[in-house]
């Protein structure tokens, strides 16, 4: 059921019930009040007549023979004065003869000639003064009062229902517009929803939706950029291989050998880039919930150095006994190896690179790599972990994959560690990789 229909139905029904109840109450109250008022007036008129009769001389009634019609006949009301013995002294209506004999004092209802009458009898000095009021007149009056009182009620009710319908329709218009806008969009559209004049209740919804759209768009753009960058990084060495191999078949043999050597370099680069990309994918795909193989800090260093071509240039300082790191050994040693490779790559062949392992901290192991490489002291280090960014590329240095430090940063982030860089005075970098220690309680 649509929101509009639901609101219309519930509000409309409550309106009708409330108004009907109010109308019924008003009707019964009015009827009672009217009956009382008219009865009071009937009684008052009887007393008024009694007052007049009391001023007459005592023998006035003796002269009277037959009851006489002393008042011109009027419809709906009647009056009669009778003696205690039942003799009618005066009456307004001739046709009441015999009908109002010996009436009981007070109010009574009686049917006279097929019409219902309300009768009041007042006793004074032995005289019975009776006034009567035809009920038909009262009913007509009541009906008129109802028409005057209830019809505006009904009209007002119908009017409020119409206003309700209009109000709900107009009030729900922003929702309806939002629905229309959303249903018109294709699922790929990520542009923000362009409703600016929505009511305050709807604005947070639209804002949240727009923020979500922007975030999704950003994530998608990042993915696309990465894919595009990855394609570039894979195609470039492939181009070199293809070009050099084709060249080898159309140049003299000595040049052909050169071309094939270059092709081999390109193949090595392609292989490295592929391996790094796969490593990145593995890190990103690994589930945080899986209990990693515990790795001791010493074995991480050993494994990182074992795969390193120039491990002789690394001087290792272990300050304390081995502790267990809460990250798989394969990934943590790969991260450390990438740091060392990077430091060695940017350092003069005669300079050594210093690796310090600090286990003094209770919740983390800190690997610090210091080099005296070509990193200038005043350069900002924020781009170091950008994917496919290489320092020294403008000087034609494209031997790295541009992914090494990005992988370290991803590993650090994934396992709750940290990676930070500091340029050294006099050139070079200090890189600190901290990985969380395995908590004894977790075992």
């Amino acid at each position, binding site marked *: 059921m649509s929101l509009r229909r639901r609101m219309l139905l519930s509000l409309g029904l409550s309106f009708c019930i409330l108004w009907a109840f109010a109308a019924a109450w008003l009707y019964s109250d009015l009827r009672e009040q009217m009956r009382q008022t008219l009865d009071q007036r009937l009684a008052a008129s009887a007393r008024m007549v009694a007052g007049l009769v009391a001023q007459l001389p005592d023998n006035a009634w003796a002269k009277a023979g037959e009851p006489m019609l002393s008042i011109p006949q009027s419809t709906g009301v009647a009056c009669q004065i009778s003696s205690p013995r039942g003799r009618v002294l005066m009456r307004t209506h001739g046709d009441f003869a015999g009908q109002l004999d010996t009436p009981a004092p007070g109010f009574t209802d009686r049917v006279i000639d097929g019409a219902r009458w309300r009768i009041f009898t007042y006793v004074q000095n032995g005289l019975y003064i009776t006034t009567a009021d035809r009920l038909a007149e009262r009913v007509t009056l009541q009906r008129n009062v109802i028409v005057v009182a209830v019809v505006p009620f009904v009209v007002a009710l119908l009017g409020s229902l119409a206003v309700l319908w209009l109000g709900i329709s107009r009030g729900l218009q922003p929702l309806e517009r939002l629905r229309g806008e959303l249903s018109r969009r294709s699922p790929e559209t990520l542009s923000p929803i362009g409703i600016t004049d929505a009511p305050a209740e709807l604005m947070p919804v639209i804002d949240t939706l727009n923020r979500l759209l922007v975030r999704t768009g950003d994530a998608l753009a990042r993915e696309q950029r990465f894919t*595009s960058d990855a*394609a*570039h*990084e*894979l*195609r*470039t*060495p*492939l*181009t*070199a*291989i*293809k*070009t*050099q191999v*084709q*060249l080898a078949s*159309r*140049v003299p043999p000595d*040049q052909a050998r050169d*071309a094939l050597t*270059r*092709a081999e*370099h*390109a193949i090595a*680069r392609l292989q490295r880039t592929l391996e790094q990309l796969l490593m990145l994918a593995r890190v990103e795909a690994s589930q945080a919930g899986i209990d990693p193989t515990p790795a001791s800090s010493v074995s991480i260093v050993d494994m990182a150095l074992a795969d390193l071509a120039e491990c002789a240039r690394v001087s290792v300082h272990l300050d304390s006994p081995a502790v267990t790191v809460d990250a798989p050994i394969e990934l943590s040693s790969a991260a450390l190896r990438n740091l060392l490779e990077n430091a060695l790559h940017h350092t003069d062949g005669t300079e050594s690179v210093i690796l310090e392992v600090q286990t003094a901290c209770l919740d983390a192991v800190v690997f610090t790599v210091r080099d005296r490489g070509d990193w200038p002291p005043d350069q900002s280090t924020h781009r170091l972990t950008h994917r496919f960014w290489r320092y020294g*590329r*403008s000087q*034609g240095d*494209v031997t790295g994959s541009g992914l090494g430090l990005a992988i370290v940063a991803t590993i650090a982030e994934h396992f709750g560690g940290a990676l930070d860089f500091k340029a050294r005075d006099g050139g070079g970098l200090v890189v600190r990789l901290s990985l969380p220690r395995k908590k004894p309680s977790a075992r």
Partner: protein
Amino acid sequence: MHVLLIEDDELVGSGIRTGLQVAGFTVDWFKTAADGRLSLASLDSDLVVLDLGLPDADGLTLLRDWRAQGLTLPVLVLTARDAVADRVAGLQTGADDYLLKPFDLDELIARLQALLRRAAGRARSLIEHGPVRVDPDNRRVWRDGREVELTRREFTLLQKILYARSGIVSLEQLKDSLYGLDTQVESNAVNVHIYHLRRKLGTGLIRTVRGLGYRLGEPSDIDGQSAQ
């Protein structure tokens, strides 16, 4: 013909350079946009092969600047990015052709030849001028139906004069097309090649325009020379 190659990758760049040299082009290769910009300001290149992913600037920015300066020389863009939007952006910026990495050396050469031909306002690759017939794609020349052997530089000279849209080619332009940025060139080297070309194909084929350079002779003039 002179090709300005702007490609930052060592292995790709060296391959393209040698490949184009084998195909008879004179190549100067730069690895940055700044160097490419500088060289084009000082050199009369016939073609540019431009890689988009340069370390110091986007190749498209360079191309946009050149077109804004009114440079009309043909530019072939090399890129490893294959999104349609990238290609459209490249062509709209003023690239004449687009080649996706990895490419075939033969295709690159054929596309460069086609670009040169188009820049000269020619639709067919075979050129007939009086008794002389030239096939630039295969670098072969015939005179009266007999094939004539030309050196690489002689052929480039002939092609440059045949393709000259304005008719007259200056000595500087010829020198740039033949030697590029190579400064170790004898001052009369171009004249020596012109002399050999005239000797092999007829004196009337290339006319000297005093103070301006050289132009192609009328077909009838070549006939006249050959009759002697």
